[in-house]
């Protein structure tokens, strides 16, 4: 019996519709607004680290990943790991929105004994696929998940988001080598290339150079996109997820702006971590509301 030819979808077939883009844009706005609101609770938090990857979060969770609302443990779901665990404050509101995490838990962010802290804990937070806190581990965690899925015959994809500062960690490149050697094609890395790390610009601390060339040299199919352009970002992620012919893993270098959304914070080292008074938070929220990113 002849098998039907499986047609690999072309890029244009996978482009999000205007309605889908509008939804993802709204959710990215929710990520930023919730980050501003939640930081008021512990009175300190990571603003600009979340703002650079808000579109990555919304694209993955509302435009790319296969998930079941209210069922964070669905065995066939796509997985998400991230090395920049300090962006969890922008991730938790999505988990609440998807019915994984009760709203009252979200509202207790960082209080004593609450499951939610600055970094995500998989043993406490439904919807967190792997804990994060020590930068540089996430790609190895994702690689293990992807290989586990393959061994069990499950058809899920693992997405791992890393910071560009994280590219300085040696363990990232151990995982990068192993993923290619093991021909793991259900692993997709996303580098949130916002150009900054805690102490300053990545190029001034330890310049990580031409990341796309490095990932390609390690054998990864590598794409570069505007990480705030939901059309472009979602299209490439959908394409990479759908492509079952790729011999190994893929990497998306998402060029982003640290602090995107609040002009005062954009490309400013200090806002990796900070605090806004309730009055300043209100103004910042209005700034987010008045913009279309």
């Amino acid at each position, binding site marked *: 019996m002849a098998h039907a030819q499986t047609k690999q979808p072309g890029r244009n077939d996978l482009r999000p519709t205007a309605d889908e883009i509008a939804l993802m844009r709204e959710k990215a706005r929710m990520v930023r607004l919730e980050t501003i609101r939640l930081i008021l609770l*512990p009175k300190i938090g990571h603003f600009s680290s979340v703002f650079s990857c808000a579109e990555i979060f919304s694209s993955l969770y509302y435009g790319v990943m296969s998930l079941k609302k209210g069922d964070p443990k669905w065995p066939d779901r796509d997985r998400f790991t991230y090395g920049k*665990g300090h962006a969890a404050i922008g991730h938790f509101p999505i988990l609440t929105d998807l019915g994984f995490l009760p709203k009252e838990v979200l509202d207790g962010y*960082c*209080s*004593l*004994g*609450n*499951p*939610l*802290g*600055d*970094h*995500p*804990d998989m043993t*406490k937070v439904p919807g967190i696929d792997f*804990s*994060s*806190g*020590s*930068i*540089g581990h996430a790609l190895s965690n994702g690689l293990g998940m992807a290989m586990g899925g393959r061994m069990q015959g499950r058809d899920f994809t693992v997405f791992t988001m890393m910071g560009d*500062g*994280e590219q*300085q*960690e*040696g363990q990232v490149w151990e995982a990068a080598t192993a993923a290619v050697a093991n021909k793991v094609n259900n692993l997709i890395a996303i580098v949130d290339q916002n150009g900054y*790390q*805690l*102490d*300053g610009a*990545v190029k001034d*601390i*330890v310049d990580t150079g031409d990341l796309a060339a490095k990932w390609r040299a390690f054998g990864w199919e590598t794409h570069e996109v505007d990480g705030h352009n939901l059309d472009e970002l979602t299209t490439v992620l959908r394409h990479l997820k759908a492509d079952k012919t790729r011999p190994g893993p893929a990497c998306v270098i998402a060029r982003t702006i640290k602090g995107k959304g*609040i*002009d*005062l*914070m954009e490309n*400013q*080292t*200090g*806002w*990796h*971590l*900070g*605090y*806004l*008074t309730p*009055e*300043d938070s209100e*103004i*910042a929220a*209005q*700034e987010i509301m*008045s*913009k279309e990113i």
Partner: protein
Amino acid sequence: MTKLEKLSPGSWHYLMMAEVFPDLLRPSDALIDLTAEGEEIVLLSPDLVNSGGLSKFAEKHPDRVINTGLSEQNTVSMAAGLATTGMVPWVSGMASFLALLCNEQIRMDVAYCQQPVRIIGHHTGLSFGFYGSSHHATEDIGALRSIANMTIISPADGNQQYAAMMASRDYDGPLYYRTGRGRDPEVYAEGAPFVIGKAIEHMRGTDVTVIACGMPLHPSIQAATKLNAEGYSVGVIDMHTIKPLDVDAVLEAASHSKVILTVEEHNVLGGLGAAVAEVLAENGSPARLVRHGIKDEYSLIGPPTHLYQHYKLDEDGIESVIRDQLA
């Protein structure tokens, strides 16, 4: 369009932290003074110059700072290499990652090779609070204590940290300092004497002697003061150096106290309590030992002060733990 143009008083960001918490810069003061005294200091920091309170040193001696970025293991091994050239490398990073992630580099390149690398593990214990249990360092003493040649110091406040860092001048081997987050309540005045390996007795007691290190020292002194005013006899010893342990101080306290209570911001396994237990057991001491700290578990997430309250590491908590022994 409404826009956040300027900050109102009270809003602040990471680079303004030292203005909000001036004690954060005490390590800078020590490195500046050590440099002035002729030490060939070089600071290696894995992207934590500001977090570790070293911006002031970096501004004064930019040519003596290597920001190694996010590569902790590489940082420690590099420091060991630098030390072989006669430099005095200081590595400053988060305690949880330096002591655990770089444990093998510390063992192999620093301690085994006997290189005089000075390591500051800051934000130790629970001081990272709601940043999460990943960032809590409740195993660093245990992880490093079994490594030969290591010296482990746990200063109680900014002034003692400064003094302990200055004491490195005449110290040959590797040093590990487990420090707080620059907001520890002050126990010591500036210039208070400090000798590596020599415990400091604050009070003498016959009912209970508290042996503490690091942040819990301050609340231990407060709790003991309160109980002594009620007529009890509670002593307090600052065991700032966990290795080499001041064995004489432990045995002396055990000779006149019914109970020895160790208090630490660390797992009760492997830390100060364990070190004291070894001494008491080996010497057949009749004093009963109670170890207070984190009971072999992953600490909760929450604001540091709430965690100290929860784990009875604040004044009220330590007082209640002492009272249990007085009953």
